């Protein structure tokens, strides 16, 4: 069963990421991002991080993706092609051949660098005993109120900042 979940999650993740990259419709890209995130949640499950997987589901699937599709709809929908006053197509196609070639070249360079660095790391790691993660939620909660309490409290300030900042930015123009 472990392998089945792993394979399904890998297919979802890799396929979703590729389709996010290749699709021409930004709405479809959001949907593929959804499958990719579901796949990553599955990978978390295979790694024993069940709480992180549930967080991924709740925050990403329920929150970020909805926000993304809202933003797509608020910026004129996926495929309105009229140009604006600057003469540039309003909703651009998702890129052109030049940018893709540059992107792929940079990806290849980065991949080679990562391989150069990681190959030593991977071969040198002695993958030891896989630990048994039970009661992850209790342990995470315990760590959040003891060791990582500062991060816990600071994150609330971060969220406050994000909420206030985004609300100010998103507020309709004055006088409306």
């Amino acid at each position, binding site marked *: 069963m472990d392998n089945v979940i*792993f*394979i399904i999650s890998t297919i979802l993740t890799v396929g979703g*990421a590729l389709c*996010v*990259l290749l699709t021409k419709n930004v709405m479809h*890209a*959001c949907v593929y*991002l959804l499958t*990719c995130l579901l796949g*990553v949640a599955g*990978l*978390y499950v295979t*790694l024993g*991080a069940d*709480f*992180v997987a549930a*967080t991924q589901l709740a*925050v990403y699937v329920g929150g*970020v993706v909805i*926000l*993304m599709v*809202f933003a*797509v709809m*608020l*910026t004129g929908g996926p495929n309105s092609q009229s140009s*604006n006053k*600057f003469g*540039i*197509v309003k*909703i*651009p*196609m*998702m*890129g*052109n051949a030049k*940018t893709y070639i*540059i*992107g*792929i070249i*940079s*990806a290849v360079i*980065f*991949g080679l660098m*990562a391989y150069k660095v990681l190959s030593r790391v991977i071969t040198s*790691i002695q*993958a030891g005993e*896989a*630990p048994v*993660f039970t009661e*992850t939620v209790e342990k*995470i909660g315990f*760590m959040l109120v003891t060791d*990582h309490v500062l991060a816990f409290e600071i994150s609330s300030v971060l*969220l406050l900042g*994000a*909420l206030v*900042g*985004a609300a100010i*930015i*998103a507020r309709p123009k004055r006088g409306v």
Partner: protein
Amino acid sequence: MMTLTSYLMISTFLFLCGLVAVIARKNLIAVLLGIELILNASALNFVAYTRFVNNNLDGHIFPLFIIIVAAAEAAVGLAIVIRFFQIRESIHIDDATQLQS
């Protein structure tokens, strides 16, 4: 099958997809999608290392905060994109050339 190497390869792949998306896309929202992919790749790395290398749960706390930061980033980033669209009627990334509207 389920080894550290395979997880690292998946996360590298995710990261590269995100990188190409950020560089190649001309649509601001698609760029944000690429950033989400990159953040996910890093979070996946943390969990994979904590499972296979060191036996504590610190690697579960970190993805949690990465997800939080990603959500906050998405909220603010999309707000900026929408505001930008209202001002310039465009979400083309080449339109974003001025600091002040």
